[in-house]
């Protein structure tokens, strides 16, 4: 046998790829660890649903009850009589809570897994990704809470409904991208987590959960405020999901799509760059 065969070569342990390539590096390391991500998702789902009797049903019951409560309260205050309003709110709740959970979960990812990071060399972004993926799975299941409502309204669902998961992915990606940029700081400044949780609570009202895109555009017309509102990256995906499921047309202008795409891509690029540059240094000796 060739003595050189199977003899491992000396190679540097930390190679620093260009900072600009961070988005691709993060995607690459997550693809490499997809087996582990699958296990982590399974762990999170299992540990959440093995206890309660109703198990996975909770992911459907929760948005259903929330939507009923919100639309009941909102109906009393405003006196709206739109019969599809509970479904409108439900899509808003599912979309916004996915975004908020991905934002806060990713912001906290380094402290949540701090003990693990003292022993493993697995890239840190893998743990953020598995948390995001778990939330995505749960939100996707939650969407089925809409089935009885859509059936009740007698809405014909077109093939476009297959696109709704894509908008969930966009929401998750965007929320976690902001989280990635914040995570390295949050692990050393715990107050930052409180700030983000507060932002998530305020964002609930600043996002189309209880209100809709048409309400927004009729309020602001075509002015600068409507344009600025598109900086909120959840507006487009939530509105699109509503249009697809309920067969409405909110008429988001092209510039709205461009702003949504720019904010999401910008957040992902910056988030992965900051995370890759700082995350591994911040967890040392926690």
């Amino acid at each position, binding site marked *: 046998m060739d003595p050189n065969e199977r003899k*491992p070569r*000396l190679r*540097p342990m930390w190679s620093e790829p260009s900072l600009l390539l961070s988005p691709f590096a993060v995607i690459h390391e997550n693809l490499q660890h997809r087996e582990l991500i699958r296990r982590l998702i399974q*762990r999170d789902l299992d540990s959440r649903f093995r206890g309660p009797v109703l198990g996975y049903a909770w992911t459907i019951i929760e948005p259903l009850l929330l939507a009923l409560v919100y639309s009941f309260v909102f109906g009393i205050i405003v006196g709206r009589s739109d019969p599809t309003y509970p479904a409108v709110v439900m899509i808003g709740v599912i979309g916004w809570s996915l975004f908020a959970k991905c934002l806060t979960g990713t912001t906290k990812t380094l402290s949540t897994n701090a003990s*693990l990071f*003292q*022993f493993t*060399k697995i890239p840190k972004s893998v743990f953020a990704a598995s948390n995001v993926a778990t939330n995505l799975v749960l939100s996707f299941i939650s969407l089925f809470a809409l089935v009885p409502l859509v059936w009740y309204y007698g809405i014909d669902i077109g093939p476009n409904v297959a696109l709704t998961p894509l908008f969930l992915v966009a929401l998750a990606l965007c929320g976690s991208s902001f989280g990635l940029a914040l995570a390295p700081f949050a692990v050393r400044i715990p107050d930052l987590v409180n700030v983000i949780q507060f932002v998530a609570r305020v964002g609930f009202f600043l996002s189309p959960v209880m209100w809709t895109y048409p309400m927004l555009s009729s309020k602001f017309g075509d002015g600068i405020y409507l344009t600025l509102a598109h900086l909120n990256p959840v507006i487009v995906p939530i509105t699109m999901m509503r249009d697809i499921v309920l067969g409405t047309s909110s008429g988001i202008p092209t510039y709205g799509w461009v702003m949504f795409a720019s904010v999401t891509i910008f957040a992902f690029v910056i988030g992965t760059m900051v995370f890759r540059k700082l995350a591994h*240094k911040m967890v040392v000796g926690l």
Partner: protein
Amino acid sequence: MVPSRIGPINVDFFDTEVVGIIGRNGSGKSTLLRLAGGVYPPDSGKISIAGTVSMLAGVGVGFNKNLTGLENTYLYASLMGWPKKTVDKHLDDIIAFSELGHHFHRPIRTYSSGMKARLGISVATAFQPDILLVDEVLGVGDASFRKKSEQRVRDMIKGSGTVIIVSHSQGFMMEICDRIVLMEQGEIVDVGDPKKMYLRYNELLNLQAD
């Protein structure tokens, strides 16, 4: 416990040798080990390795109480970077060594702390890397299991190309180490013959006691 900064450090570890790292608490032993294992990044300088590296430490880290022993085995292994194939190959051995029997298929929230420790040691010591890093893991379980796991670590050490070990047990270290690295305040004081290094180490300790 882990110092915020160690170094500058310049040391080589070679194939087929067992190197011990000794020093007082907080001298940077574990940090050096984690740098070698690729867990911590160096602020500056370069770390190069040849072959697979794995750390025997933090037994039970990443375990989830609602998952069974079997599920936790696969989870822990993938957290440490071992592929499923490797776990499949060693699964029978892990079950046998852990002495858990049918409990292996039950959630570990039903385990006693001794059982959890046995599972942790069994999984942690199941796979053989080219470079093995050991950080004080021998003191778990009852006396008979402790003896068994100490023997298992010895076997692992025999099977590994390079072993870097941190331990406070002088007898154990003198017996197995070819060389010893003596650390103090984040820096390497000296590297060499175990007997000489322990002499210097004890001098250091006495110096501090005075």
